[in-house]
């Protein structure tokens, strides 16, 4: 980084990436807190969790998995494209990544609005009628997926910025660490989902 008050001697790519990875660790542990709760309550209410999970929309969940995996692919390709000097391809790929994020959120919106229409949301009268384990399941479900959705949103915005920067040349084959770091963030969002999907949608 050249803002230390010195002429930029060199960019420390490894340092920048190290910083990003460290940041990702904090994200992992942030979600980790929710996974601690999930594991404890799954242990306590296995039956209720399965019953509640069966009420989720598996199709939408699976679709979102495919969307995010594909988004990850596009962004990974974008990083290589920039480094190989193919700016056009990189831009397309990044906008594709943004699109995957938007699709994901649209899906999420559909899913949640149906559930809310069925009266299932935290502290709703319908939910409170259910077994305790199911109340906890849905509490965790809304908070975990909400937090994840927020990350998708941030990631998509980052990708859009990167797409613009690739277009303006601020990110180029000699200076691409910002793109690489944004990509890392985007993949993390994908990683978290890889665990959310089986834990919330596939329980039996």
């Amino acid at each position, binding site marked *: 980084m050249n803002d230390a008050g010195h002429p930029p*001697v*060199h*960019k*420390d*790519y*490894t340092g920048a*990436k*190290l910083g990003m*990875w*460290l940041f990702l*660790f904090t994200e*992992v*542990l942030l979600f*980790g807190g929710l*996974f*601690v709760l999930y*594991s*404890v309550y*799954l*242990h*306590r209410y*296995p039956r209720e969790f399965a019953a509640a999970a069966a009420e989720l929309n*598996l199709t939408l969940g*699976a679709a979102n*998995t*495919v969307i995010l*995996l*594909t988004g*990850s*692919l596009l*962004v*990974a*390709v974008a*990083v*290589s*494209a920039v*480094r*190989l000097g193919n700016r056009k391809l990189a831009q397309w790929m990044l906008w594709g990544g943004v699109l995957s994020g938007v699709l994901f959120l649209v899906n999420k919106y559909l899913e949640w609005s149906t559930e809310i229409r069925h009266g299932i949301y935290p502290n709703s009268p319908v939910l409170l009628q259910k077994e305790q384990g199911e109340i906890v399941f849905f509490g965790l479900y809304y908070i975990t997926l909400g937090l994840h959705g927020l990350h998708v949103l941030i990631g998509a915005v980052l990708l859009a910025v990167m797409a613009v920067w690739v277009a303006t040349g601020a990110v180029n084959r*000699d200076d691409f660490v910002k793109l*690489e770091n944004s*990509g*890392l963030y985007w*993949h993390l969002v*994908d*990683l978290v989902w*890889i*665990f959310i*999907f*089986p*834990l919330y949608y*596939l*329980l*039996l």
Partner: protein
Amino acid sequence: MSEQQHPAVPYRTFVIVWALLLVLTAITVAVSRIHLGALNIWVALGIASLKSALVIFFFMHLKYERLLFKLLLLLALVTLATFIGLTFFDVLYR
């Protein structure tokens, strides 16, 4: 650039990884429809770990980074696992 950067990863690698990820997704959905009891959750977690390993090592280039990065990631994951594990000393025996 004053230091060695690993060369760009070919597109083909990414596409293969992506295909593998989709296959694993299909498998995990399929397996989850079979009743295996408590085993279900472990199979699901196993596949999820496999998938995340693919993402981390290829999409996130960890395979091409220096050893330090791998060790640090391990440290973070072990920490999380320890937090969950020690909590279970309470939850399991209460």
